[in-house]
């Protein structure tokens, strides 16, 4: 992967920095009481979304979870639209109807995040089925946590994708916990990747804090999917370094030391080190990029904060199509 061209690596760096910067701002906003609903950050896991989405075309699609800010931005959602949505503003990507757990931007292939654990797997499988029926070469990705692995949706989705040979990537971000319940407790089998065998599809484990490794593994799987060779299960071993959701306890089920240990494997720092090790002068470039990203997020935050709330009179719009009339005497 080290022969990846520098520009691509810098893109990966920028992608991760953008997510991180955006979420650190959301954390502070949450602490200041500016975010009305729950907020699950992706801090520590950025390498997964960025590594995978860097291999996707704009018309490829992703489906994600309650912890979906990173996937949304990595797929191309402007941070402005994310932040406005999390702030509950009309300019948010879901018009303020969704919130942090319900992000939609079909024009960049973000087909949605879900507050319920499981559906992303099935919906991504469904998109894969669409591409088969429509005979396109698009690819679909399901992001989900280790918590979804022992849910029936995992079983049913992976099996269907395999028997119909669908162009789908199943990306499990094994951050070791579902809220506070450890994966090793919930799962009779400690390996997610190994479960691919149960369905007859390839399962690959990768260091989810190494964006270059994720990029490589995802790239191959997407290539396979696009060329009609079927689905792949990828287990990204990673860790969230913030609490499950903002405002929640964090050291009742894991130690500060463990968290600190993982912070030292931060995916952004790691790529930074690689880049700088290759070329000491890179430090400056990266610094400049950090500044750019900061400016982008400054602007996005300002946009979000200054955006209007949706009009209460529109609360019932979009339940049905056809100008949201509830009854169409068509």
């Amino acid at each position, binding site marked *: 992967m080290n022969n990846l061209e520098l520009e691509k690596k810098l893109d990966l760096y920028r992608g991760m920095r953008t997510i991180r910067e955006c979420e650190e701002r959301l954390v502070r906003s949450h602490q200041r009481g500016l975010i009305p609903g729950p907020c699950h950050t992706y801090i520590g896991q950025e390498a997964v979304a960025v590594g995978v989405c860097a291999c996707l075309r704009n018309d490829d699609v992703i489906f994600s979870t309650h912890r979906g800010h990173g996937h949304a931005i990595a797929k191309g959602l402007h941070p402005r639209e994310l932040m406005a949505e999390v702030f509950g503003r009309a300019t948010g990507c879901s018009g303020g109807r969704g919130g942090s757990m319900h992000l939609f931007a079909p024009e960049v292939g973000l087909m949605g995040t879900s507050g319920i654990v499981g559906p992303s797997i099935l919906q991504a499988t469904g998109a894969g089925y669409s591409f088969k029926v429509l005979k396109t070469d698009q690819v*679909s990705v399901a992001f989900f946590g280790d918590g979804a692995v022992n849910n029936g949706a995992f079983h049913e989705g992976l099996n*269907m994708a395999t028997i119909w040979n669908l162009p789908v990537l199943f990306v499990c971000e094994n951050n070791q916990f579902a809220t506070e319940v450890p994966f090793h407790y919930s799962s009779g089998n400690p390996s997610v990747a190994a479960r691919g065998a149960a369905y007859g599809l390839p399962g690959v484990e990768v260091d989810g804090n190494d964006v270059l490794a994720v990029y490589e593994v995802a790239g191959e799987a997407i290539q396979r999917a696009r060329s009609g060779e079927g689905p792949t299960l990828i287990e990204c071993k990673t860790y969230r370094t913030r609490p499950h959701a903002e405002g929640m306890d964090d050291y009742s089920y894991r130690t500060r030391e463990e968290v600190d240990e993982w912070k030292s494997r931060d995916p952004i720092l790691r790529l930074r080190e690689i880049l700088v090790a290759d070329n000491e002068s890179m430090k400056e470039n990266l610094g400049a990029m950090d500044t750019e990203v900061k400016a982008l997020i400054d602007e996005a935050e300002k946009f979000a904060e200054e955006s209007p709330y949706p009009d209460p009179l529109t609360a019932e719009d979009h339940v049905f*199509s056809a100008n949201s009339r509830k009854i169409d005497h068509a």
Partner: protein
Amino acid sequence: MREITFMQATLEALSEEMAKNPKIFVMGEGIGKRGGNFNTTKGLFDLYGPDRLCDTPICERGFVGLAAGAAMTGTRPVIDFMFADFILDAAGEIINQIAKIQYMSGGRLKAPVLLRGCIGIGHSAGTHHSGSYYPMYAHFPGLRVVVPSNAYDAKGLLKQSLNSNDPVLFLEHKSLLTKKCPVPEEEFLIPFGKARIVQKGADVTVVALAMMVHQTLEVCKQLEGEGVSVELIDPRTVAPMDIETILDSVHKTGRLLIVDETFAPCGIGAEIAAQVNDRGFDDLDAPIRRLNGAHSPTPYSPPLEAAVVPQPDRIAQEIRDLMAE
């Protein structure tokens, strides 16, 4: 006009729409080569191939969840679930995903999923193959719920469903599938939310659904002989519900009975009664009555089974009682 069965009518509707729209595909257990447990896809496999008539494993949640993702990405899935009881396993995907995608996304996405399959009590199918569920689906926002009572309506409403941008539950009473009625060869659609006045009458309004339309019709003549003129209304879709047609009728008759095979509590009859009481209060000359199936699981044994479904003589008696109010 030619007469065809309910089953033939829906098969025609589906085949016509599939011929026109290559984005339609059907999924379900045994709906491929076999042509469906209820012959709902008979012959289509040969016409449209395995990708568009896709047999599934027994994973109702899975393929309903799949349909959501497919609909969001440009196809139009038809889920043929055989018995409605089975897709309770997919209730989360229907209520929290399919029904909400349009709203959650601020209108950016649509989920035109058609969920179709059989409902209803009969033939000692037992309690896991006899449920109806339309009140449950009508309760939640975002779904169209269709409950046709005859071949003509079934064809027109299935075609409407396959052209709607909203998710639709299309529920077919088992006992109606082989019933025939005249259905034109020409293309026609029936809009959602438009009731059918099955029979005009002056004394009492009866609203009935699916199989109960026929059970009620059976006693109308007899009642006519007794001097009671029944106006019989079939709402055809329960979400949306065409309350205007019912209100107009009650305005005329002053009396209303709702006959529904499935459970009363929080059911369709309750909703109609509540709306008519609210908006047609001054028109009412008597209490609104409901006649529902028993509030119990469906028993297997024929005499028990018959006891939990409204029978024609019970319907007639309810109407007489209501006339006496």
